């Protein structure tokens, strides 16, 4: 019990002192995760909107595959990206292995199916509502996709948040392609795993607290945004 209390005390000390090691890990984590989520949203939302608005043969099968990809294990994605970016892989020339770039790539692949599939569901509901209006006004397909994405922007924030949650808490893929190298590719989850195994509970705990605070802050911000959008009947 004494160890437990000491770990908490030390963790709070690290947080209050803005320990440089801690700050570096947190900053890299946010850089990797936010970049990956932004890329995943840039790919996944238009793909989801296209799937919601378009009717084509095999659409059902594409949706099933997309939904299945949501549950891809992070370690499998890590392995796939490792094979792609290792020296012998097709993207080996980019020298991305054990860099934040490879971690962003892995998390983007991890999160894109999630935001595309959840986004498609949100956008399909919007499309059902707008469909007759779009058809009546002969709205071109691309304009329909753009309109859906814009009008559903506040609802899609929640989807992006789900993507952020999956990426920021993920450890399997980033440890394979990033290697958990200090000052280079060490992020919160990999550092927590490492420090716990080494018995340095204070740093692990401090990182855990930061992880929770980040998640709560982003959730709260999205909730405030959605509430204001709701007042304007934009949701």
């Amino acid at each position, binding site marked *: 019990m004494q160890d437990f209390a000491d770990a908490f005390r030390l963790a709070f000390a690290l947080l209050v002192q803005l320990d440089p090691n801690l700050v570096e890990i947190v900053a890299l984590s946010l850089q990797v995760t936010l970049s990956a989520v932004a890329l995943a949203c840039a790919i996944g939302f238009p793909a989801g909107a296209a799937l919601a608005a378009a009717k084509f043969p095999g659409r059902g099968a594409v949706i099933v595959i997309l939904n299945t990809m949501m549950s891809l294990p992070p370690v499998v994605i890590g392995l796939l990206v490792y094979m792609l970016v290792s020296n012998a892989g097709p993207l080996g020339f980019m020298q991305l292995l054990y860099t934040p770039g490879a971690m962003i790539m892995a998390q983007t692949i991890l999160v894109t199916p999630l935001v595309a599939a959840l986004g498609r569901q949100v956008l399909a509901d919007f499309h059902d*509502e*707008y469909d*007759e*209006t779009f*058809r*009546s*006004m*002969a*709205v*071109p397909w691309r*304009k329909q996709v753009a*309109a859906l994405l*814009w*009008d559903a922007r506040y609802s899609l924030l929640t989807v992006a948040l789900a993507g952020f949650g999956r990426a920021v808490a993920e450890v399997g893929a980033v440890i394979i392609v990033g290697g958990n190298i200090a000052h280079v590719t060490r992020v919160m989850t990999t550092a927590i795993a490492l420090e716990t195994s080494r018995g340095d509970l204070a740093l692990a705990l401090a990182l855990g607290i930061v992880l929770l605070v980040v998640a709560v802050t982003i959730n709260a911000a999205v909730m405030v945004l959605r509430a204001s959008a709701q007042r*304007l*009947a*934009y*949701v």
Partner: protein
Amino acid sequence: MTSETRSSGCGSDIRQLTVRGLCHDIAGKRVLENIDLSLQSQGVTAIMGANGAGKSILIRILHGLLRPSGGTVSWGGRAMTRDMLRSQAFVPQSPVLLRRSVAANLKFALTLRRRRDISTRLDALLALADLADKADQPARTLSGGEQQRLALARALATDPKVLFLDEVTASLDPANTLAIETVIRRVSDDGTRVLLVSHDLGQGKRVADDVVFLHRGRLAEHSPAKTFFSQPVSAEARGYCEGRIVL
């Protein structure tokens, strides 16, 4: 059979409607039965009848939103095409407004036709809908009457040659109804062909040039409005005009 090209000698005015043998089934039930109809290129036609008579389905088929189970619909002697659809506009009873401001809803429609005078047209449409002071307000926070006026203005933003209105004043107060009827008359006078689904006998008398009366999915009567309201021919139309419950 769906809408198909029919050389009917109707001329090339795409505001001129010809319907032949139109049928439509929903879930195995016939809701429109063998409708033949010809409408001239000018004026306001009121499509009237009791609930379930098939008015809203008919107007959606005429606009190309529904594919008929049988028969043909032609505009100016030609089947509906995408270009033709672009020259038509439709306002339903419960309009679906985009989750944007009033002005943004109108701009969306204006940009669909790649207009260069968007700013001028936007001001004119806001004035037409009497919503100039609410241009920046979120559209979905407007009152029911304001939303309907906005939907009508958005439909007119595409400069339609044919305008379909499905019970657009059904839940509006007299002031909003009058505002919308004034716009209907004005656009009709400017050459837009208007097809208006309505339950309201008074509205039919005020705005319609001719009346299409449906009863249980069949065309019971099509006659000039004055004739329809003063001397309806069919028993169903007579009962309807006299305010009796027609089943």
